[in-house]
């Protein structure tokens, strides 16, 4: 292990705040390999310099990627070829196999923002903050996808792209709130200066937690208020009739979307952690360590 004055200083500071392993310059050279996620935090967690945990994480991501590919193929086959067209809506009803799982995965992503933001507030560990950020990015993308697919479906079946309906309006609010969450992070300096001009995690976590209040509002808007949008089918208390083949295609595509979201989440997280400089300037390291306590 190459050892110079800088790493010695690091180990002084880092050792005090429970990062037991001094960072070697070897870490910086190895991190240029694209398929191994170099995460200083993960190394610190395991307390040994080995890359085996990172290799495991990369292998797990690849496995999840293949699982996603398999489920997507199965869901596409079921949704396009096996499930029958709807009696009233015709083939347009097949948009359900994209619109519903996109909305479900967006809910899941915002639930992840809630959980990871609470985790950050409890521990002040920057890893929770990164997870919250990635989950919010995913949720915003999926909500936008839900609205776009819903507009297509609405045009085909209702006869309109958009309606001032409680479900559509509340979903748009949800999109705006979590776009605002990402804007707050950016405004505080994330991604523009290293380290950010101001601490990002705390204020972001509060927005992320408060924003989740909209999720039950969106989901139950079709029950609480008069709506053009139809209520849930699978999650309905007294499930209305749905053709078993249609239900199977829907559940398969929900599974495919969920694994795809988990896969993208882990990849994005690994990329962010790769970008976190493992040997950052001493001053910022000390500041980050203090913040993480």
């Amino acid at each position, binding site marked *: 292990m190459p050892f110079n004055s800088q790493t010695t200083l690091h180990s002084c500071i880092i050792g005090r705040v429970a990062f037991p392993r001094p960072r070697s310059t070897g870490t910086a050279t190895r991190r240029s390999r694209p398929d191994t996620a170099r995460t200083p935090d993960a190394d610190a967690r395991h307390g040994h310099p080995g890359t085996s945990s990172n290799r495991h994480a990369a292998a797990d991501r690849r496995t999840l990627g293949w699982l996603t590919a398999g489920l997507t193929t199965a869901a596409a086959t079921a949704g396009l070829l096996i499930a*029958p*067209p*709807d*009696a*009233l*809506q*015709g083939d347009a*009803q097949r948009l*359900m196999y994209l619109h519903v799982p996109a909305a479900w995965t967006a809910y899941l992503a915002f639930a992840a923002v809630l959980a990871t933001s609470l985790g950050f507030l409890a521990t002040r560990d920057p890893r929770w903050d990164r997870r919250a950020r990635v989950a919010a990015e995913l949720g915003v993308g999926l909500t936008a996808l839900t609205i776009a697919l819903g507009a297509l479906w609405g045009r*085909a*079946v*209702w*006869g*309109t792209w958009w*309606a*001032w*309906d*409680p479900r559509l*309006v509340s979903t*748009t*609010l949800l999109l*705006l*709130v979590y*776009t*605002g969450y990402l*804007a*707050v992070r*950016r*405004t*505080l300096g994330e991604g523009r200066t290293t380290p950010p*001009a*101001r601490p990002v995690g705390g204020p972001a976590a509060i927005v992320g937690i408060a924003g989740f209040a909209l999720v039950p509002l969106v989901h139950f808007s079709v029950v609480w*208020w*008069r*709506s*053009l949008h*139809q*209520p*849930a*089918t699978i999650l*309905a208390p007294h499930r*209305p*009739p*749905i*053709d078993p*083949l*249609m239900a199977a295609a829907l559940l398969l595509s929900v599974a495919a979307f969920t694994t795809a979201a988990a896969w993208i989440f882990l990849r994005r997280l690994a990329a962010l952690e790769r970008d976190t400089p493992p040997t950052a300037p001493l001053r910022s390291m000390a500041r980050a360590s203090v913040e993480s306590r």
Partner: protein
Amino acid sequence: MIRPTRAGVTLAAVLLAGTGLLVQAGLRDTLSYYRTPAELDADPAAPATRTRLTGMVVPGSVRHDGRQTVFRLAAEGHEVTVRQRGAPPDTFRAGQDAVVEGVLGPDGVFDSDQVVVRHGNDYRPAYDGSPGTAR
């Protein structure tokens, strides 16, 4: 050092303004998206106010009259005759729910310029002679 950038502040302001506009414009009519024929009958101020009306398209009542479509919407034992300008969407069927937007005229006929089709949360394959194909 607390120094939000101008771009950040502008973005936040635009987002807040967007949210405010959506809330203001949307919630006015959103929380009661439509009214029923019974509510329209009971409301003496109903004529001359633009509103949305829902009900089941009464089977046998749909008549295409030039560029107009005339039909009746029924719910809870009340019926309102609707005169719709322009063609309704392809999914418009007798026996299904629809929402029309317009004004109740003094003659008791609802003049609508937009009709959208409501559908339930049940999904079933098409069979020959399914009720959905009856006009």
